[in-house]
Every structure is written in C-alpha cells, then in structure tokens.
C-alpha cells in the first residue's frame, strides 16, 4: 500500500472468515458486471469499462491528430507547399493542436485516473460511477462533432488558442469558431466531472488505514492534477462562454470599440492554458514515480520532497500564465515578476527529476520495456524543460516567441513529459488491463522509431525558429534557407508516425495474442497488483487495508483478498458497495452504495448535447426545450440517492459494523458538491477578474452613464436578495426539523422564496441597458445569467428537498437533498450579493 518497492513478508492475519474464491467471484460478478450486448455498452458505469473507453477513444483521437500533423509536415516540407490551400491548412493546424490538447491529452489522463485509481487505492469503483459515464459520453459526442467539422470543411481555423478579434464574428463569420467554443466546452464538462470525481475518490475512497501521507505517490500526483483542473478549467470555460455569447448575440466583451479588450481573452485562456501543461505533466510524472522505484528495486527517494514539489507546482503554475504574453506590451515590472515565477517553477520539476535519478542510482535498474520509454522521457523532457527556462527569459522570449522554436519546445515538453511516460504507463499496466503479456520485440522497435523520429523532427526545429520561421505559416517561397530544415523535420515526422502506428499494433497484438500474464509480473507492491488478472469488474472480492494491528495491504495479499478475508467481502446485499474513509487518516466511516448499470448518464449527456447543438445551429429559441430536458435528467439522478426507510449497518469485518451512506450527512455526493462549488467559485472569480480587468485596463472606459439606479431596479434587487436569504434560512430550518412534519412547510416556504427571487431577477433583466452597447452592460447580463443558473439549481434542490420531506426521505440520520440545497443556496446568495454590490458600486462611483 505504501510505495515500498519490495513486497513485504507474507500475510497471515485476516478480517473475515475465508470463503471459496470462485463462489465469491460469481456473487460479485452478478452485481458488478456490465449488462450483455448493446445495452451493456450504453448502460455501463463501471470505472474499469469507462476508463478503458476513455483511453481507447483518446488514442483514436491521437491517431487523427497524428494524421493532421503529417499533413502539416507534408505542407511544410517544401517552401511552396502546394499541398493544402491556406484555408484548409489553417483548419488542419488548429485542429491538430485542439485535438491533441482537448481530445487526447486530457481525456487520456482522465481515462488512466478513472481506470487506475480505485485499483491502486484499494477500492471497487470511483466515487461517482454515473458521473464517469456521463463525462465519457460528453467527451465522445463533443469530440466526434469537432472532428466531423473537419470533414465538413468548417473546422476551427483560428489557431488552438483562438485569439480574438481573429476569432470573433467579424473576422471568422462562419461556424468554425463556434465549433471550437461549443465543442471544447462540451468536452470540458467531462474534465470537470473527472476533476470532482478524482478529488473525492482520492480523499475519501481509499483502503482503510491508508493515510493521505502514505498513499502511493500517484495518488498525490492525481490529486494535484484534479485540483488544478477544478480551478484551471473555469477561466477557459468562462472565456469560451463569453466569446460564444459575443459571437452569437453581439455582446462586446472583447471588442475594443465598445469597452471590451482582446487581451481579456488571452488572460482567461492562459490562466487555463499554463496550468494545463502541468495538468498534463503531473499524471505522467505520477506514472514515472510508480514505475521507476519498482524497476530500480528501491523505494522512491524523497517521498515527502516529491509531495512538496507537487504542491509547489500546483500553486506556482497559476502564477505564470503571463509568460505566454511577454510580447503584448505589459509593464516591465510585471515582466520581471512573471519571468521569475516561470523560472522558479523549474525548481520543483528539478526536484522530481533528481529524485528519480537518485532512486535509480541507489537501486539496480532492470532495463525492461517501460524503462526504455522512461529513458525516452528523460532524454526529451530535460531538453524541453531547459528550452522552457530559456523562453521564460524575457529578451529571448521576444525573439523566439511565436516561432518554430516554440513549436519545438512544446513538443519536447508534451511528447517528452506526457506521451513517453504514458507509453511507459500503458505497457506497465497492460497485463492488468488485458491479462496478457506483451509480444517480444515490437515495443522496442516502436520505441526506437518514435525516439529517432521525434528528435529528427523537432531537434532541428529549434534552429528553424531561430532562423526566423514563424508558427502557422503555410508557405515560405522567399526563404530557401528554411527548406532543408523543414524537409528534414518532415521526413523524420513520418518515421515517428510509423513508430506510433507500430506501438498501437503492439498493444493490439498484446491484447489479442499475448500469452497469459502471471500475477504481479513486475513484482510491484502497490495494491493494483493485488487484483486478479485481468482485473474483474468489481476489482477485488474483499477490500485491502489495515486496522488495529492487522494488515492485508500489499500486492502479496492477493489470495486472502480473493477469498474474502479483507474488508467488506462479496456483495451479500446484492448492491455495489465500497468503503468510505476519512480524508486524512483513512479511518473507515461508512459504506457507500454505488449505482448500478443505467443509461441515465447517456440520456443526460444527450440532453446537454442537444443544448450545444441548438446553440451551434443558431436555434436559440429552442434551447428552453434542452434546458428542460437537462433539468428532468438531473431530477432523475437524485432518485436513487435517498431512501424512505432507515437501513441497517452492514458488517465490514468480523467485528466492525458501519452504516450505509443513506444514514450519513457527509456523503461522497456532498463532498462532490463542495468541490463543484470550488470550481464554481473560480468561475465567478474569473468573471470578477474580467470586470476588474476591463474597468481598469481596457481603453473604452469609463462606460457611458447607465440607467440601473432607478427605484424599480433597487426594489427588484432587494426582493431577489430577500428571497435568497429567506430560502437559505428555510433550508437551514428544514434540516433542523427534518424529523417533523414542519419540514415540509419550511421546504415549501424556501421553494416559494426562491421562485420570488427568480421572478425578481427576470424583472431585473427587463431593466438592463442595451447589452450590445458597452462591455459593462454585457457583463451585467452575464452576472445576471450566472445568478439565474444558480437560482434554478437552488430552486430545483429546494423542490427536491420538499419532495424528500413529503415522501419520508428525511429522518434522524437521513438528510435527503437538504445539505446540497443549503450549499447551493448559500453560494447563490453570496455570488448574487457580490454582483449587486459590484453593480451598485459601478453606478455610484
């Protein structure tokens, strides 16, 4: 369970009476397996299935992005590049970047996390299985639409960072940019879902007795990743919403003539975009920290220092987004600050690299295939990191920015820091995934092709950039001096592509024809190898863990665990169960009953998808239908989350009974809601940043006098806030008196107060100044829309709480939807209150 590389002594203790492993397996498979046939494809919520699907789909998109990169290299091989016309070329490179970032890298790491985390933390599934499936469907549908747009010839063509004004409605009139904004945002839903789910799982769904401070390092890495996703994606989501609203309804957020500023987009984009690099790097580094110690036969050096480095990276990475903007003309003190921050971020990275080298130094390295990919990582990522430090030095950045040098740098970082480690990870975990051992030789050949192809493509590209070749040009007829460099890159690019094709072939061959792998083939100590091979749907018949001096918590415990000697054996109640522990020490507190197979996630993603489809096709008047469908689906999600009667505690070990989650206030879902609101708070903070940035920095301010100071407006604001306060008090009251009939009346009062607040908000909307006139008024519409979204959510939760009260789903230990209602209600009140303060301040000052 700890990251000790050496398996410890055989275990003799047990928590439950052993049973026959085969009958246990049948009992669990009955409950946990996907349904057979097509229905099983549509209704699976199992983390193993969903994680595998994420990774396979990500690899398919990787292949598509790879084909696009070959088109780019073919185009640039000669200076006249008569291969693609410029319009198509612009779509191709935009799609290459967007696909690799949003449809390959992020989903790949989500897939790995979803598939791996419950196994390595000693659990049976992720905290929210339906959310896993929902995220996957959003990803699949959104990604497919984005790729199909290329087939239809209307793919995004503004570069993967979609700078305005180039991406606005004047300069990109078609739906190309809308495909990007809506498609990527739709896919981002899966990233947010994964972020919430990964965080909750790592914090609360671990093996009993596994304290946070001793969990496998990859847990820390993925925790850092998911926290960064929670706060890193909201700025991009906000930016995409703003730009889409500007394109669709002409609200000026980025139009400088009307109080907007194109730099606001750059800030929001890179507030996401830089942390994104570390979001991608951390899981890869997690895989390295898992594999290197085992193949070196030595525990990882400096566990604590690595955890500190991860935390340092999480914080630092949010302080250096401006280094993508050194040439936009910002004050030179800011330049120095962000330059220093960008250089500083290399320190925690160096700590990790030297910790890995030190681990290998102290151990005896076995040069097996994953190690080969790790060598590929070192020899690539070190250089990428060094060119990154060079780019952080402002004067050099002024020359190298937006040239092929940067293209080379980012491929060194992303292929070195993500793709090589991921290939190591896939080869590492393939025996657990497929139950099979690899075919000899193919992986090595693939590695050398990729390695030689990669450096041949990108090493000289640094020089191409220094010789002045900018990014994203289609032809260079007047610059013969770049031609040999580009031709070389193109030739080696094809070699690299062949290598990736061979890698894919290797994996397929292993999955289909490899010989059966024996248990724990790498002799690792982590709990993922305490599973039968290939991992069954339920992972493990009884959960590993340690308590009261007894321990079954290493990969060696595989047989006792399969015999049901660990925690919570089998599925005696016919439901999917896993243990929930305290975040810090890992003390078991209750049993989470997880949802079984259902098509609800698919239906919900289709409802959400229909909203995006209507936005994309300009059918704005039909969107209320989609919103109603989303609300209906959301309501259905709550149905299984409560019970109308008290449920008995269940036996976890021979002497420990724990309650089921129906009898708990602090459920996994409630933790999830808190984390969702952390993301929500970041989005609102980004919105406030936008208002502040435009007010202070944008040229077209102060705005012309507004008309929001009249008495009707003040009354509407007061009514809305009063409604929110009353409903918050009512929600509090409902929880206090939940065992009495009065709970129903209080819930009804809260519901009514919320409806009143929503009506007041609608009235306020009618009073707003023309939002197309100035960014100030446009931002007010966004603040109002923000309040409306949370208002509707809080109102639905109030209705749900009323229904829980009416149907007996509240009790002494049963809380129904009330705690979640209180959280959303409070969040609504605070954000709406801040918005009111802001608007009043704008009017008064």
């Amino acid at each position: 369970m700890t990251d000790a590389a050496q398996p410890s002594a055989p275990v003799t203790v047990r928590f439950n009476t052993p049973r026959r492993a085969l009958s246990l397996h049948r009992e669990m498979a009955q409950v946990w397996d996907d349904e057979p046939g097509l229905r099983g494809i549509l209704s699976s919520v199992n983390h193993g299935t969903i994680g595998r699907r994420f990774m396979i789909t990500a690899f398919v998109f990787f292949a598509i992005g790879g084909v696009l990169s070959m088109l780019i290299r073919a185009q640039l091989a000669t200076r006249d590049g008569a291969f693609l016309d410029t319009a198509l070329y612009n779509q191709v490179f935009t799609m290459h970047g967007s696909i690799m970032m949003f449809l390959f890298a992020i989903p790949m790491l989500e897939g790995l996390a979803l598939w791996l985390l419950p196994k390595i933390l000693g659990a049976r599934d992720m905290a929210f299985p339906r959310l896993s499936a929902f995220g996957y469907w959003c990803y699949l549908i959104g990604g497919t639409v984005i790729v199909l747009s290329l087939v239809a010839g209307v793919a995004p063509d503004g570069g993967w960072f979609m700078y305005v004004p180039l991406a606005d409605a004047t300069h990109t009139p078609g739906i190309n940019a809308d495909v990007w904004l809506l498609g990527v945002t739709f896919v981002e839903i899966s990233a947010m879902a994964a972020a919430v789910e990964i965080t909750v799982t790592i914090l609360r769904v671990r093996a009993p007795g596994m304290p946070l401070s001793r969990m496998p390092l990859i847990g820390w890495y993925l925790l850092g990743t998911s926290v960064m996703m929670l706060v890193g994606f909201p700025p991009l989501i906000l930016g995409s919403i703003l730009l889409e609203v500007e394109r669709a309804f002409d609200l000026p957020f980025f139009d400088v003539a009307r109080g907007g500023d194109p730099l606001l987009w750059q800030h929001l984009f890179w507030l996401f975009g830089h942390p994104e690099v570390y979001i991608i790097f951390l899981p890869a580094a997690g895989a390295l920290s898992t594999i290197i110690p085992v193949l070196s036969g030595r525990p990882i050096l400096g566990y604590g220092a690595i955890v500190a480095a991860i935390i340092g990276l999480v914080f630092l990475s949010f302080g250096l987004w401006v280094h993508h903007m050194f040439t936009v003309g910002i004050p030179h003190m800011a330049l120095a600050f962000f330059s220093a921050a960008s250089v500083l971020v290399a320190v925690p990275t160096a700590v990790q690299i030297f910790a890995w080298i030190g681990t290998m130094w102290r151990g005896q390295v076995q040069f097996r295939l994953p190690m080969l990919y790790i060598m590929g990582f070192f020899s690539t990522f070190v250089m990428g990191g060094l060119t990154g430090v060079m780019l952080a030095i402002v004067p050099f950045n002024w020359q190298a920015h937006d040239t092929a040098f940067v293209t080379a740098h980012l491929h060194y970082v992303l292929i070195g820091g993500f793709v090589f480690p991921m290939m190591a990870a896939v080869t590492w975990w393939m025996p657990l995934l497929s139950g099979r051992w690899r075919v000899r030789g193919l992986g090595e050949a693939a590695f050398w092709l990729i390695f030689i192809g990669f450096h041949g493509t990108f090493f000289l590209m640094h020089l191409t950039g220094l010789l002045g070749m900018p990014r994203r040009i289609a032809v260079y007829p007047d610059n013969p001096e770049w031609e040999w460099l580009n031709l070389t890159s193109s030739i080696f690019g094809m070699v690299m592509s062949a290598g990736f094709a061979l890698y894919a072939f290797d994996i397929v061959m292993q999955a289909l024809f490899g010989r059966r792998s024996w248990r724990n083939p790498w002799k690792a100590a982590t709990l993922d190898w305490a599973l039968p091979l290939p991992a069954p749907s339920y992972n493990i018949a009884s959960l590993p863990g340690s308590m009261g001096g007894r321990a079954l918590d290493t990969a060696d415990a595989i047989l006792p665990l399969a015999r049901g000697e660990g925690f919570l054996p089998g599925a005696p109640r016919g439901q999917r169960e896993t243990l929930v522990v305290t975040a810090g020490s890992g003390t078991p507190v209750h049993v989470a009953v997880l949802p079984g197979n259902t098509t609800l996630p698919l239906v919900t993603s289709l409802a959400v998808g229909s909203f995006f489809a209507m936005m994309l096709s300009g059918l704005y008047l039909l969107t209320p239908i989609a919103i109603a469908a989303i609300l209906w689906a959301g309501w259905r999600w709550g149905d299984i989350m409560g019970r109308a009667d008290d449920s008995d505690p269940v036996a976890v070990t021979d002497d420990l009974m724990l309650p089921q989650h129906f009898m708990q206030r602090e459920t996994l879902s409630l933790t999830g809601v808190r984390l969702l609101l952390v993301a929500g708070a970041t989005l609102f903070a980004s919105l406030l940043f936008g208002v502040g940035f435009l007010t202070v920095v944008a040229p077209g301010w102060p705005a012309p006098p507004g008309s929001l100071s009249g008495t009707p407006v003040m009354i509407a604001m007061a009514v809305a806030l009063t409604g929110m306060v009353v409903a918050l008090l009512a929600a509090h009251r409902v929880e206090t008196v939940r065992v009495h009939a009065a709970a129903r009346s209080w819930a009804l009062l809260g519901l009514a107060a919320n409806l009143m607040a929503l009506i007041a908000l609608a009235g306020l909307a009618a009073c707003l100044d023309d939002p197309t006139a100035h960014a100030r008024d446009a931002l007010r519409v966004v603040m109002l829309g923000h309040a409306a979204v949370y208002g509707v959510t809080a109102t639905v939760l109030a209705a749900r709480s009323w229904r829980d009260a009416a149907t007996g789903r509240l009790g002494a230990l049963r809380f129904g939807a009330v705690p979640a209602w209180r959280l959303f209600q409070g969040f609504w009140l605070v954000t709406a209150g801040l918005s009111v303060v802001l608007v009043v301040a704008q009017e008064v000052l």
Partner: protein
Amino acid sequence: MLSRPRHLNRLVPALAIGVLTGCGGPLSTLAPAGPAAREIAFLWYVMLLGGTAITVLVMGLIAMALRRRPADDSDARAERVWIHGWGLGFSAVVLTALLATGIVIGERMLARDDGAPRVQAIAMQWGWQFAQPGPDGNPVTTDGILYVPAGQDFEIAIEARDVIHSFWVPQLGGKMDAIPGRVNLHRLRADAPGRYEGLCAEFCGIGHSDMRFEVVAYDPAAPLPPFLSADDPQDAAAAQPDPVQPQPDPASSQPDPAPETTR
C-alpha cells in the same frame, strides 16, 4: 527508375543551401544587425552552452545510475545529495544566474522617453502601413517599407487596425504585438544602413504567411532616400545602393538588398 521524382531534384540544392547558410538568412535572429538582436543572440549562445552542459550532465548521471551497483547510503544522506543538493541547490543557482542576466539585458531594451525618433507601424489584414518623419519633419506614409535612420535608436509605435498582429524584424531585435485599441512602443536600432526583412509573427488569418515588410535603414548624414511604398514602381530604383549606402558590416552577415520587396 528512369526519372527521379521531382522533389528529389529539390532535395539536393535544399540541403546544399542549408549547409552553406548555417545561421544566416534575412530573417535570422542569429545574424544580428542591431544591438538588441546582438545581445539576445549572445544570450542564446550562453544559454545553449549552459543547456548543453546541463543536458550532458543529467544524461551522464542517468547513464551512470543505470550501470552502478545498488548503493547502501542512508535515506537521509541520499536526500541531502539528490533532493537538496541537485534538486534544489544546483537548479536554484543556475536559474538565479540566468534570471538575473535576462532581467539586466531586458532592461536595456525597454522603450524610454529620451527623444529617439519615433515612427509608426499600423498592421492590418494583410499588410503594414508605416509613417516616418520625412525631410520636412512631417510624417510620410508608406506601405510595406519602413524608413529609419541607421546607427541610432528609434521607437516604433505599433498599432493594429483589425486583429492582433506582431511586428518582428529578427535581425534588429525582438517582436512586439500589434493589438487593436492599444499603442505598443518598441525600441530598435540598425547598426548600419541596409535593408532588413520583417514579418508578422502572430497568426492573423489567411494572409498571415505573406504579411512581410522591409525596414530600410538610411544613413542619417546623407540626403534622405525617397520614401517609397513596396508596390511603388520606382521602388526598384530604391532597391539600388544609391542613395542608400549600405556599408558592409563585418560583425554580421548582411543580407543582400532584396531584388523584390514585400508582396
């Protein structure tokens, strides 16, 4: 095979050009023709040297780690060496030195208000318009060619008319974005009279690849050259050495006067 594929005919001369030109070329940051570009090129070579040394060092450590027998040192000692020594100490020293150098060099390049001649550059889809002080002191507007005095600093006020572009003359110095609604000041200097190529470095749509321009640095002591636009028929004359007198710069590989200007 009887006939070679056409691209092979291109391959050989292309490779020959590559070997011959090395670091040169009209857009090369490594063929500096002004102090800013020269300092950055110097910075690059320093960083290249340092970066190579660090890469060799780290890869050497890894190679040794692979071949060594297991070590029996204590965890505390190993952490001191690898985490504190290499991870924190080594990286902090290298990075601090580099950062300080960067800040000092950057400071020297910033625009400041000291009466250097100011020209104006306006970027649009897809071309450049420049305004520079003419013989009588009044601004003269040209398309595609910017005229500046050689041997002294000049400041460029950079604006954009539609989308974001970026002003870049690699032989003279770093780039500066042209952003709608903003005026960005940039400071450059050409050591010697001559023609320097420039381009738009920020992707700006269909015409991005062709958004080139030229900077003509003239001898301020000599009579001013006629300020012609790139599409001006008389520009062919302007491309001749007279009245601009390019003086060969021994320190850098000066580009040949282009027979044809920006398109």
